C-alpha cells in the first residue's frame, strides 16, 4: 500500500470517527525518526455543518517486522487513551483500529502535539541538540514529568492489565526475563560481553516494593520540545510501546543511560546523570537507590542490545526491506563497549 492509498484510507477512517460531512487530507508524511512502529504525521481539513477546521494527527501502525516484535499496539493505546485528559504531556489518543480492512495492520491515531523531536545524535560541532538555556529549562521539566508519570495511581486507572509484578524481586526479575527472552528469540550466538552482563544481572537482581507505571522508553528522542531559549518547553512524551508496571528507577536509568548522550557528558544531552537523578528524587520524593539504579543502568544497555538483535533477525530473515535495521550490525560493538564501562572491565567505567 503506497502513501497515497494510506492517506485516502485515513480520510475515510477519520470521516467516520469524527462524524464529519467530509474530511480532506491536506498533508501526509511518513516519519523517519522511529525505527519501530510505522509513524505517519498528517493534517486534515474537517468539514462539519458548513465549517472547515484543520487538525493535526499522528497514526502509529504495526510494522510487518521490527525491533519490538511480536507487536501488540493495544496496551499502549489503552494507556495513552486513559491518559488523554491528564496534565502529563502525553498525546490525546482517541482511536485504535484492529480491522485489517482499514489499514491492513492494527494502528491507532493520536492528536499531534506542538513541537519537534530532538534526537540523540551529535551535531557537526560535536555538541548535543540543545544550547545551555534549553538544557537548563528542559532538565527539570523532564525530571518533573517523569516524577508525575510515576505518581499516577495505576490501580485507580485500571492499568493492572499491564501485569502487576510480584513483590520483592518481581519487577526486576520480570524485566530481565523479558529481555533475555528477546535475546534468545533473536537466535544469534551469545556474545561474551553480553553473557558477562546477563550473569551479573542475574546475581544482582534488586528487590523493591515500589511499583509504578513505567514508560519504558523515556529518553531523548521521545520528547516533543518547543524551543524558546530559557522558556523552552516540554510539550509531549511519545513512544509508549514499552509501557508496563515496574520499578520507577528503570525509567530513570534508561533516561540517563550512556545510550542517549550523543557524545556529550550529559544524560539525554541535558545535565549530568547525578544531577538528573537529584532533580527526579526531589520532585518524586523518592530515594534513588544506587544499587537498584546500577542494575537498571546495565539492563538499559542489555535492552538496547536485545532490541538491535531483534531488528537484525528481521533483516537477516528478509522479513523487512528496511535497511536502517542493518546498521545495528556495526553499532553493536559500541554497545558492548558501554557494557564494559558499566560493568567496569573497561576504563572509564562506573
Amino acid at each position, binding site marked *: 500500500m503506497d502513501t497515497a492509498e494510506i492517506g485516502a484510507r485515513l480520510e475515510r477512517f477519520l470521516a467516520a470517527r469524527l462524524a464529519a460531512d467530509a474530511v480532506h487530507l491536506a498533508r501526509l508524511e511518513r516519519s523517519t525518526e522511529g525505527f519501530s512502529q510505522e509513524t505517519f504525521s498528517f493534517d486534515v481539513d474537517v468539514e462539519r455543518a458548513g465549517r472547515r477546521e484543520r487538525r493535526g494527527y499522528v497514526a502509529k501502525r504495526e510494522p510487518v517486522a521490527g525491533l519490538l516484535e511480536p507487536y501488540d499496539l493495544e496496551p499502549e493505546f489503552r494507556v495513552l487513551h486513559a491518559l488523554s485528559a491528564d496534565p502529563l504531556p502525553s498525546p490525546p489518543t482517541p482511536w485504535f483500529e484492529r480491522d485489517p480492512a482499514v489499514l491492513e495492520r492494527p494502528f491507532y491515531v493520536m492528536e499531534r502535539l506542538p513541537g519537534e523531536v530532538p*534526537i540523540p545524535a551529535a551535531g557537526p560541532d560535536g555538541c548535543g541538540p540543545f544550547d545551555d538555556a534549553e538544557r537548563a529549562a528542559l532538565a527539570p521539566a523532564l525530571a518533573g514529568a517523569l516524577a508525575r508519570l510515576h505518581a499516577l495511581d495505576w490501580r485507580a486507572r485500571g492499568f493492572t492489565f499491564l501485569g502487576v509484578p510480584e513483590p520483592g524481586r518481581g519487577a526486576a526479575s520480570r524485566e530481565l526475563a523479558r529481555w533475555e527472552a528477546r535475546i534468545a528469540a533473536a537466535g544469534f550466538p551469545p*556474545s561474551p560481553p553480553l*553473557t558477562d552482563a546477563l550473569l551479573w544481572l542475574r546475581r544482582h537482581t534488586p528487590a523493591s516494593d515500589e511499583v509504578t507505571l513505567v514508560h519504558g522508553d523515556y529518553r531523548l528522542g521521545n520528547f516533543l520540545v518547543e524551543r524558546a531559549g530559557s522558556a523552552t518547553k516540554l510539550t509531549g512524551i511519545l513512544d509508549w510501546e514499552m509501557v508496563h508496571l515496574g520499578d520507577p528507577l528503570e525509567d530513570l536509568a534508561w533516561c540517563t543511560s550512556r545510550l542517549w548522550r550523543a557524545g556529550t557528558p550529559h544524560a539525554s544531552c541535558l545535565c549530568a546523570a547525578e544531577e538528573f537523578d537529584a532533580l527526579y528524587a526531589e520532585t518524586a520524593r523518592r530515594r534513588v537507590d544506587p544499587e537498584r539504579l546500577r542494575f537498571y543502568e546495565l539492563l538499559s544497555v542489555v535492552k538496547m542490545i536485545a532490541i538491535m538483535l531483534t531488528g*537484525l533477525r528481521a533483516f*537477516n530473515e528478509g522479513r523487512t526491506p*528496511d*535497511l536502517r535495521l542493518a546498521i545495528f550490525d556495526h553499532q553493536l560493538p559500541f554497545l558492548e563497549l558501554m557494557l*564494559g564501562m558499566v560493568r567496569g*572491565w*573497561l576504563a572509564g567505567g562506573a
Partner: protein
Amino acid sequence: MLVPLETLIDGVVRALTEAVAPDVGTRYARGQLFAAVDVLRNLRDRIEEKAALQRLETESAEAALGAVIAALGDEARAVVAALAEAPAEPPAARLVGLRAALVRALAVVDALPPALAARARPPLAEHLAMQALRDVTVLKPSLLAEISRG
C-alpha cells in the same frame, strides 16, 4: 558481524532498487544508482571478512582461555572441553568456537566461590576490553543523525 556479508549486500541492493530508485529523478543519477547495484551484486560472492581482524581476536581469546585454564586447574574442565570443541580451521569457524568457549568460561567463573573466581576474571576482563576496543576502532563515524532525519 552477525549478519553475513552476502545478506547485507543483498539488503543494500534491495533497498536501492525498491526504495531509492523510484524516487531518483534524473537519468544520470539513475544510471549511477544501477551501476552501484551492479557493482554490489558482483562483489557479494568475492569477499569475506578481513582475516587480520579475525586473527587478532583469535589470538586474544586463546590467550585469555589459556590463562583461565591455568588459574582454575581442575575447575576449568568445562572450559577445556569447550576449547577442544572449537575447530582448528577455517579461521571464521574457529573464532565462533572460541567465542562459545569464552561464554562457557564466563559461566564457569560466575559459579565459582568469589576467591577462586577472582583469579580467573582478570584475563577474561582484559580480553573483553581489548576486543571491544578493537571492534570499535574499525568503525566509521555514525550517520545516525542523517538516517533518523532523512
